[in-house]
C-alpha cells in the first residue's frame, strides 16, 4: 500500500548561440567555416524569398502567401540536418525548409500562385506535397518511416507542423503509432507562438509543447528556434538516432511568427506590437551574423555578395515562374486516377 512516484519526465531546453552572437563552446555542433557560411547564405536566401513573395502578393502577382519571417533559423537549421534520401512532409509555412532542401525556387513561387504542378517534387527530392489541413500529414511521415524501416532503407522521415498542429487528433494518432513501432521519424514543431489569432498559451495548457512526447514514450526537446546552431544540433542528433533504429524524436523549435498569419490576415487585430518588437530583437539572422562577425567570417562585402546572389536567384526564379505556361484545364481531371473513368472521358471533352 503506497503513494509513490512510478514515472517521471524532464523536458530539456537547448540554446547554443545567444542574441549577442556568443556561443557555448561545449554545446556547439562541429561545423566548418564553410558550413556556417552555407547556413548564413541559406538564411539570407530564405529571407529574400520571403520578402519577394510578400511584395509580389501585394502587387497581385501571387496569391495568398504565408510568411516565414522570424522562423528562418528553425527552418534552415533543421532542414540542413537531412540528406537527399530522407523523406520530408512539410506544412504550408515551410518555404525555408524547401529552399534549404533545394526545391526549385520558381516552383515555390508557382505554388503560391495556385498551380498544382509546382507540387510535383523533382525526382531526386523526397518531398511530399505541402499539407494544407493542419497536422494531418503527421501520420504520412510515420507511414513513410515505417515503410523505409520495412524495406531496410536507412533514411529518416520528417514532419513539419506548427504549434496549432499539435492540437489535432492526427498529431496524437501519428505520434502514438510512431512510438509503438519505433519508427525512424523526426517531428519538428515550429512553435511560432501563434495559430492565426490563437496564442500558444491558449492552444494548450501544457507548459511546453515538447513535453507532449512523453505521452508516447519518446523524447521531446525544446530548442531555441532562433538559434540555428541549436536547431541544427538537435535535428542532426534526432536524424542519426532515427537512422540507428532508435525511434522518433519530437523537436519543439521555440520561435516567432513576426509577420501576419498570411497575406490575408491582419495580426494587429489580435496581438500587441510590443510583443512583435521584442521578438525582432531575437532575430535569427542577426544573431548568426554577430557570431560570424566575431569569428571574422562576416564582412560587409561578404554580406553584400550573399545578398546580391540571393537577389539574383530570386529574380531569376520569379522570371521563370511567371514565364510558365498556364496549366491545361484538362489536368484537373486527368490526375484523379491513373486512368480516366468513362465519365471523366466525357467530361474532359469540355476542354
Amino acid at each position: 500500500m503506497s503513494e509513490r512516484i512510478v514515472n517521471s519526465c524532464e523536458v530539456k531546453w537547448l540554446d547554443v548561440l545567444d542574441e549577442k552572437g556568443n556561443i557555448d563552446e561545449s554545446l556547439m555542433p562541429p561545423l566548418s567555416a564553410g558550413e556556417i557560411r552555407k547556413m548564413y547564405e541559406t538564411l539570407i536566401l530564405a529571407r529574400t524569398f520571403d520578402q519577394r513573395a510578400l511584395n509580389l502578393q501585394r502587387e497581385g502577382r501571387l496569391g495568398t502567401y504565408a510568411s516565414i519571417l522570424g522562423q528562418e533559423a528553425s527552418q534552415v537549421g533543421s532542414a540542413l540536418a537531412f540528406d537527399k534520401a530522407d523523406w520530408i512532409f512539410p506544412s504550408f509555412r515551410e518555404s525555408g525548409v524547401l529552399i534549404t532542401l533545394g526545391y526549385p525556387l520558381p516552383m515555390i513561387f508557382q505554388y503560391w500562385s495556385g498551380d498544382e504542378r509546382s507540387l510535383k517534387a523533382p525526382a531526386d527530392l523526397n518531398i511530399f506535397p505541402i499539407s494544407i489541413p493542419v497536422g494531418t500529414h503527421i501520420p504520412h511521415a510515420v507511414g513513410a518511416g515505417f515503410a523505409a524501416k520495412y524495406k531496410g532503407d536507412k533514411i529518416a522521415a520528417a514532419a513539419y507542423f506548427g504549434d496549432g498542429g499539435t492540437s489535432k487528433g492526427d498529431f496524437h494518432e501519428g505520434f502514438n503509432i510512431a512510438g509503438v513501432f519505433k519508427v525512424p521519424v523526426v517531428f519538428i514543431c515550429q512553435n511560432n507562438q501563434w495559430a492565426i489569432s490563437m496564442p500558444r498559451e491558449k492552444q494548450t495548457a501544457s507548459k511546453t509543447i515538447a513535453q507532449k512526447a512523453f505521452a508516447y514514450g519518446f523524447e521531446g526537446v525544446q530548442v531555441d528556434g532562433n538559434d540555428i546552431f541549436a536547431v541544427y544540433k538537435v535535428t542532426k542528433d534526432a536524424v542519426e538516432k532515427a537512422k540507428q533504429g532508435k525511434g522518433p524524436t519530437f523537436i519543439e523549435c521555440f520561435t516567432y511568427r513576426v509577420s501576419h498569419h498570411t497575406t490575408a490576415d491582419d495580426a494587429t487585430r489580435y496581438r500587441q506590437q510590443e510583443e512583435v518588437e521584442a521578438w525582432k530583437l531575437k532575430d535569427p539572422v542577426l544573431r548568426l551574423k554577430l557570431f560570424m562577425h566575431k569569428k571574422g567570417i562576416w564582412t560587409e562585402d561578404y554580406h553584400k555578395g550573399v545578398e546580391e546572389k540571393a537577389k539574383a536567384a530570386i529574380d531569376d526564379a520569379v522570371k521563370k515562374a511567371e514565364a510558365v505556361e498556364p496549366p491545361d484545364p484538362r489536368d484537373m481531371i486527368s490526375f484523379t486516377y491513373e486512368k480516366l473513368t468513362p465519365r471523366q472521358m466525357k467530361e474532359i471533352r469540355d476542354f
Partner: protein
Amino acid sequence: MPKMNMVQAINLALREELQRDKDVIILGEDVGLDGGVFRVTEGLLKQFGPERVVDTPLAESGIVGAAIGMAAYGLKPVAEIQFMGFIYPALDQIFSHAARIRSRSRGRYTCPLVVRTPYGAGIKPPELHSESAEALFCHMPGIKVVIPATPYTAKGLLISSIRDPDPVVFLEATRLYRLIKEEVPEGEYTLPLGRARVVREGNEMTVIAWGSMLHRVLQAVKAVDAEVIDLMTLRPFDEETILRSVKKTGRVVIVHEAPKTCGFGAEISATVAEEAMLYLKAPILRVTGYDAVMPLAKLEEHFMPTVERIQRAFEEVMKY
C-alpha cells in the same frame, strides 16, 4: 431597411440570437478576437464576452464533439469550421454522434447544434478551402443541411437553424459573402427549414440550384422561360415544390458546384424520376463540377459550372 451583404446578415443573425437566448454560444477557431477569417463573427466577442464567443484550439473533431456535449447539456452551440475542407475531421462526430444522439437516447438527449462553415469555390484560396461536399451530409439521417443564396434568406435560415432542435450543417458560399447586398430587416424573422423558394416563375423548364450556383443560374436563364428554384434546405428537401414545378414544365436542369457523381443533384433527379416520370418531356440534366479534385487558383474557374455550360443544358432539354 439597411442593405447588407451575407457576412453582415449572418453576423446580425448571430448577434440577435446571442442577445435573445443565453443558451446560444459560439465556438471555433479564430471566431473571437479575430472575428473569424471572413469576419462573420466580428464584434461578437466584444459584445458578448469570451464565455459566449469562444476561441478554441485547432481541433475540428474536438470542437464539434465538445459542441455536442454542450448541446446535450442544454446549450445551443453554433460551431464554426473555418473552411469546409476542414469539416472532414469532424465527420465522425457529426455522423456517429450529432446525427444520432436523439435516436440513440430515444429523445432523452438532443443535439440542437449548428455547424457553420464556408463552402465552395470563388476566392482562389489554397487547397481544401473550396470544397462543396454538401451531399455527404445529405445522406446522413439525423442531420439537416441548409445553404442560403442571399443575405435575406441567410439571416432567416440561420435563425431557424439555431432554434431548430436538431443538428444543422449551415453552409455559406465564400463567393457570395460580399458579392450581393440586399435589404435585410433588423429584428426577428425566420424562414422555415425544408422549404424551397421559387425565385423566378417559368413554364418550359425547372432549374434547381442553391448557394452560389443560384446566381449563375439566374444569369443563364435570362433568355429562357425557366422556373428557378432556390432549394435553400437540402435535407430535408422540398420535394413538393420541385415536383409541382416539374409537373408544370416537364423539363429539369439541376446545377451544382460539387462533382457530379453522387452529388445532391442525383437525389433530386432520382426523386423526379420516381415521382414525376410521366410528366417528363426530356432527360433530366445535371450541370455540375467535374468528377475531379477541386483545383487551385489557376484552374478554379474551369471547375465550376459556367453560364455557358448551364445554357448548353437548357438548349439540350429544349430539344425535346
